[in-house]
């Protein structure tokens, strides 16, 4: 599983680098969790939904509604800003009445409010009104699987960020080597070199954190990778744009394809504050903070 994950993370970095359109990260993520048809998938980790048994058990032991005649569900609530939510099969992972579940969702049976992130990638909000899920479509998950899905989502997003960061480096190095001002390439100026070095360092830092989490998936490694990836976005995009000059600030330049994604992706699947806080809480609860980091 670890090596499969590492392979997927490598593929996701490439997708992030190429600004690949489509729910690539989400499809990869979905296929990791379950054997499902090879089709565009997207994953919604839902905490704003209410799930109830469609046919509550009358003879069930315990409080009413905690068991059903079968697994069929009725679901209401909203799934905010689902990547490609209007056009892909949505895999919903949620806390159900009898424990965590996964079910595929047909967007056609929801109310879709289309939206986009800053890069123009679809981020559609799906409203479910007493949405019926057939018993056969409900896949029970263990609490550990549900928690792991959250970590995988964050790691996938961090891998995309690492890819887009590499792209910023690539485009910036190419631009400063070819753009001539004052009769020589920009890269020949000491000040440009210094900024470029900071960009390369910051991007490498993100890549290393993502790789480590892919090798050893854990709350700590993913929290560190996503917190660092998201936190580095500001500096990476800043330097890439600065060294591109005005062209990068317009549709005439390609660097925006990476930077607008970076600005969006750092928020998606948990921003740096939320992951840093989780890491902090983990560190405060641990006996030995060094042992926590140096597993």
């Amino acid at each position, binding site marked *: 599983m670890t090596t499969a994950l590492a392979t997927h993370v490598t593929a996701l970095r490439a997708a992030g680098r190429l600004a690949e359109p489509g729910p690539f990260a989400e499809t990869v993520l979905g296929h990791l969790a379950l054997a499902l048809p090879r089709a565009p998938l997207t994953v919604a980790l839902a905490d704003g939904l209410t799930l109830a048994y469609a046919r509550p058990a009358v003879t069930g032991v315990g409080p009413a509604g905690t068991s059903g005649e079968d697994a069929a569900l009725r679901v209401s609530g909203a799934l905010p*800003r689902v990547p490609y939510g209007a056009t892909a099969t949505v895999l919903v992972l949620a806390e159900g009445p009898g424990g965590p579940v996964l079910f595929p969702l047909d967007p056609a049976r929801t109310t879709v409010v289309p*939206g*986009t*992130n*800053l890069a123009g990638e679809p981020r559609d909000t799906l409203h479910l009104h007493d949405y019926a899920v057939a018993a056969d479509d409900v896949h029970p998950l263990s609490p550990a699987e549900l928690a792991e899905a959250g970590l995988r989502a964050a790691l996938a997003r961090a891998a995309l960020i690492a890819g887009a960061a590499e792209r910023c480096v690539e485009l910036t190095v190419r631009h400063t080597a070819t753009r001539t*001002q*004052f009769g020589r390439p920009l890269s020949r*100026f000491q*000040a*440009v070199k210094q*900024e470029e070095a900071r960009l390369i360092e910051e991007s490498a830092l993100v890549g290393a954190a993502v790789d480590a989490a892919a090798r050893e998936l854990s709350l700590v490694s993913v929290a560190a990778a996503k917190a660092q990836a998201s936190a580095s976005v*500001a500096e990476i*995009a*800043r330097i890439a*744009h*600065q060294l591109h*000059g*005005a062209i*990068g*600030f*317009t*549709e*005439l330049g390609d660097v*925006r394809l990476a*930077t*607008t994604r970076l*600005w969006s992706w750092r*928020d998606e699947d948990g*921003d*740096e*504050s*939320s992951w840093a806080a989780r890491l902090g809480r983990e560190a405060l609860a641990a006996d030995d903070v060094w042992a926590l980091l140096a597993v």
Partner: protein
Amino acid sequence: MTATTDTLQLRREVRDFLAEERARGTVLGRPDSWLTGWDPQFSRRLAGRGWVGMALPPEYGGGGLGFAARVVVIEELLAAGAPVSAHWVADRQIGPSVLAHGTEEQKQRFLPAIAAGRCYFSIGMSEQEAGSDLANVRTRAERVPGGWRLTGTKKWTGGAHVNDYAIVLARTSEHEDRHQGLSQFIVDLRAPGVRTEPIRLISGEHTFNWFHLDGVEVPDGMLLGQEGDGWKQVTGELAFERSGPERYLSTFPLLVSLTRELRRGAATPDQQARLGALLARVFAVRQLSLGVADALDAGRPADVRAALVKDLGTRLEGDIVHEVRRILPVTADTGATPGSYPHHLAYALLHSPGYTLRGGANEILRGIITRGLEQQS
């Protein structure tokens, strides 16, 4: 600068005016409104209060006041996110430049119109091969009977599609030293041979243009200053272009928006501390910036200090965007309600690459700062 009763009174008047404008719905508290907030009606009402061309002499329709008084007005407008871009360039640099280098006829023609908030200018300096290396401009002006013929293409010309005139830097003769043989012309943007094409920002907004001059005939009377003095004049203009409060206040409206959001609930100690840290920094940069206005008023050289303020201030403009987003996380969204916090955040963010480029990239300014230090020692 020490606040005098005059400036306190002035500040109060501007605030009252802004309150009225807010009620009218013209002042939306948008970040970076001096780049994209183009509203000629607003410009005229502002001029009606005497707040455009304030530093111009009264005989040309100006207020006859110093830079310090102008700074008071500008600060208030920028912090409020008022739509000042129509008259911005004319007020900030064309007025002072025409006053310093223009003929009597040019002064009569342009200064009263500028001060009335009715005459809008673009800056036609940059070109494809002349960005930071401005002396590399390729646009040329050839002598023709009674004037000049201008040929070339300017790039990133803000507002050329809506303004009345552009100040164009062109080569009038060849020299070993590229800084010689440049001249400035006032070009009517509706003259035959002028053509503009939009270049969209990453936000999708249109403010930049390609500005083509295909053999545009410019009468002798529209040469600004002496032929061949263009470089000196442009450098002088840059001192005005670089020193103002727009070099640290562009994203202040976003801080205002954040503060409003935080007041709705109970801010955590961490949020309070982070907001306070930003405000302390704005305060400190403002003090430096006011020092530049004082120096300009006293006729002291201010270019090194202006460069320093611009580097510090424009980086702070960007830092505010990112730190505000950390203090109160929200998804930046250009599709959110105009005027809402996520909407302001989206535009402040999408404009952020520009803060440290316009008016000269910060690296060039650091060069000015280091050269200034060398000269001092």
